[in-house]
């Protein structure tokens, strides 16, 4: 996965988490994953369609999700509360929406789906066309993980066409 695709997501997550949680954030571990994704707790998934295709999952452990929801709601929330899942979905929406905005301004054209709670224990794995990158953002409320699996649709097609011609 090219850095030009990843950097907007790092910048966006850093800015949105810092502003929303009113704390400093730090990018922790970054790793490539080719194994099947295993959900850590409360997760939201957003699909991307267009010049770039794939999906992004924002994921936190249940305790961190509850701390984040309580902070943003300005009061106590119950761990079973839908608001906790809603909060993670909206956080994903803001992080990914801001990154998409930046990528669109660079000339990429695509749309995102509304965020959905990712309830499955396992997500999509990376494959030869879709590499999965996992980033950890450390915040005052706990660690927030972002799992990105996407690929250039247009460019890959062009590359394949060039290979056939060659």
């Amino acid at each position: 996965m090219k850095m030009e695709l990843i950097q907007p997501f790092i910048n966006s997550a850093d800015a949105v988490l810092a502003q929303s949680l009113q704390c400093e954030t730090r990018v922790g571990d970054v790793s490539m994953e080719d194994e099947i994704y295993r959900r850590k707790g409360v997760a939201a998934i957003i699909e991307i369609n267009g010049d770039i295709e794939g999906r992004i999952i924002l994921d936190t452990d249940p305790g961190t999700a509850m701390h984040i929801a309580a902070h943003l709601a300005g009061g106590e929330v119950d761990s079973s509360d839908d608001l906790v899942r809603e909060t993670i979905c909206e956080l994903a929406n803001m992080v990914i929406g801001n990154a998409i905005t930046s990528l669109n301004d660079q000339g990429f054209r695509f749309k995102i789906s509304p965020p959905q709670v990712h309830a499955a224990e396992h997500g999509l794995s990376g494959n030869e066309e879709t590499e999965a990158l996992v980033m950890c953002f450390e915040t005052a409320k706990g660690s927030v993980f972002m799992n990105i699996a996407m690929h250039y649709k247009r460019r890959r097609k062009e590359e394949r066409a060039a290979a056939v011609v060659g």
Partner: protein
Amino acid sequence: MEQFAALVKAKDNKPLRYLIVDDSIFARKNLAKMLESFGGEVAGEAGDGCTAITEYERVHPDLVLMDITMPQMEGIEAAERIVRQYPNARVVMVSSVGYQENIVAALQKGARHFVQKPVKADVLYEVVRYVMGDDVLTAQTVSAGGK
């Protein structure tokens, strides 16, 4: 939350009435808190574009805050339909996706302004004042005028 000088309608000094449209309950609550800190009243809420249209017809708000990416009907289409039927409707798009094409499309369909998420209360406050124009007064203006 930061408190702002209350925004009231110029014609009767009553609070501004808002319709909040967003598929995220969290986002709606967050916006509602901000609007209440501006002295406003949430007249209705909707989680998709179709419901936004029926809610607009039901509550006739002074201002609509409309998300873009939503299920069933997206915000830009809902804004267009509302403005086509009610040309004086004031719709402000509120979305995390703020690239130029989206903003231009929304403005061409009748939206009055655009605010990018995460929403900052002071930015939203200024946008509400700008969009409402002469139809809104701040509380200080009201009390100064009353003396």
